[in-house]
């Protein structure tokens, strides 16, 4: 690029000047479709949503223009809403911790296994990512209830005498949520592990360290930032996923996403739904900034 401007710079004919102007405007022209999408269809809606969250709500109307912080106060004081925030945080935290443990073990397994297994395992890990969330929900929806596969398998194997149903329990919601977040966590951790020299593990073993010691003293410190990033990513994802917990969990399992949808489609209370969304956005932004600062620190370590 610099070569182009340099060769043409000495002879500044009008044509060359035009070419340079084109050169300067070209990147903006190239970026314009992407910027239109993210500014007009993301930036402006976000600002309107922020504004909307301060509007008044009246029955039979979506909203009434006004300026009130009532909805935020309502979210922070009304028991049902406060509970929803806590439920979301708690469920996301537990689910992303479980995701992290399973994801780490899975990534380590793939990393240590001979290369011929690798492709099969990666294909397997891609499955939850490539299947629609609704299909995943439906799959578990057929597995957990009284007439589902789980109950049938357990009774016909003679482990249980009566049919059981795990459907509409917090456990089902948790299983579904972990399933949805697992691939993100797995791929982040696998990419981190791939950057580590496997001979370090062997060296540690040769020096007499037990596997657990090797894990604690060698692997864990090397993957620590990766663990935090993967955890944060799973947490964001678990927080935003509302369909899985609300379809598999009990009716009383109100997450923030569920309440947004309920206020928006069911109760037509747009200001309250917006206020809820803003809280979710802020939570996601906080976790993202945390992740970014970790990434920055990691790169500065290596530099």
């Amino acid at each position, binding site marked *: *690029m610099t*070569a*182009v401007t340099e060769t043409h710079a000495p002879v500044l004919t009008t044509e060359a000047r035009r070419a340079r102007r*084109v050169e300067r405007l*070209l*990147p*903006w022209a*190239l*970026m314009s*479709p*992407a*910027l239109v*999408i*993210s*500014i007009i*269809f*993301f*930036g*402006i*809606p*976000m600002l*309107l*949503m922020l504004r909307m969250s301060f509007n008044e709500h009246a029955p039979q109307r979506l909203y009434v223009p006004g300026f009130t912080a009532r909805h935020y106060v309502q979210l922070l004081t009304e028991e049902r809403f406060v509970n929803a925030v806590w439920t979301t945080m708690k469920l996301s935290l537990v689910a992303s911790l479980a995701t992290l443990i399973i994801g780490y*073990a899975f990534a380590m*397994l793939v990393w*240590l296994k001979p290369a011929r297994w690798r492709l099969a395992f990666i294909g397997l890990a891609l*499955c939850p990512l*490539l*299947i*629609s*969330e*609704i*299909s995943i929900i*439906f*799959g*578990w929806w*057929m597995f957990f209830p009284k007439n*589902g*596969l789980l109950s049938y*398998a357990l009774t*016909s194997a003679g482990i249980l005498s009566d049919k059981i149903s795990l459907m509409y329990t917090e456990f089902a919601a948790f299983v579904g949520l972990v*399933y949805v977040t697992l691939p993100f966590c797995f791929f982040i951790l696998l990419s981190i592990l791939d950057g580590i020299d496997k001979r370090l593990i*062997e060296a*540690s*073993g040769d020096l007499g360290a037990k*596997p657990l010691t090797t894990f604690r003293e060698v692997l864990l410190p090397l993957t620590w930032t990766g663990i935090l990033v993967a955890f944060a990513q799973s947490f964001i994802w678990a*927080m*935003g*996923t509302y*369909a899985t917990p609300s*379809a598999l969990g009990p009716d009383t399992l109100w997450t923030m*996403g569920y309440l*947004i*949808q309920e206020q*928006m*489609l069911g109760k037509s209370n747009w200001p309250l*739904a917006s206020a809820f969304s803003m809280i*979710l*956005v802020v939570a*996601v932004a906080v976790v993202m900034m945390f992740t970014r600062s970790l990434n920055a620190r990691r790169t500065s370590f290596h530099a």
Partner: protein
Amino acid sequence: MPELAVERSGSRGGGFQPAFLKAVSIAFTIFVVGYILIPIVVTLIMSFNDANMIRFPINTWSLKWYRDFLGSAQFTGALLNSLIVAIGTTIIATTSGVLAAWAFERYPIPFKNGLYLIIMLPLFMPGVVLGLGVAIAFGGINIFGFQLYGSRLLLMIAHSLWAMPLVFMLMEATFRTIDHRIVEASYDLGGKPLQTFFEIVVPSVSTGIISSALFAFVISLNEFVMALFLTDRDTQTLPVLMWLSLRSAGTPRLAVSAVILACAVFACLTVIMVWYIRQLRKTAR
């Protein structure tokens, strides 16, 4: 078993695993494989069920529900909507994402980090939030008698909020791998920027473009939270219809829908694989 363990301990990589760890790793492998496969296998089995209810064990098998799906105007219509929206999303997201990534790779841009953040940010937002935002902003907008809200076009753009940053991210990484001397050579030989882009750059990153386009397609095909907020009865996509039907009553027809959706996705993956292998052969030759 002991011999096996000895043999393993001699091999590379497994050097630190005693027999106990090996047992744990086998148990864990079974757990993970089972966990990931359960909903898939259950759905696949159920789609060949003959009964009207979702119930295990399955006594008779048939293709009844596949015929039922194809005979239902509502479901085939929803599938068609899904495909139209996914193709539209692919076109919008791939074009905008590839061009922006090329601009980022090739030209000095002021406020690069800020612009990067603006483009990437929607990818990290929950679908619920994006759907609500777009619904609020474009809820009542009517352009020359064309109702934007509830239209497929608005849904395509909404899906692009996830698909475009993904394409951008993948293509930015891909563009970084191309040899810039080739691009310079094209300029030196008198190639115009656009000509260079289409004749030199695009062919050398075709695998990246195809893969990111198909990922955009898959994202749009599978997404249903935004679609739930932004479609009406006539434009609802298959996942939305599945979600609404699941709330009222689940029948094996939903299993068929899930299988068909998954087949569309795996067809895309096959295309990526075939393309990739063909490209590899080409470079090998």
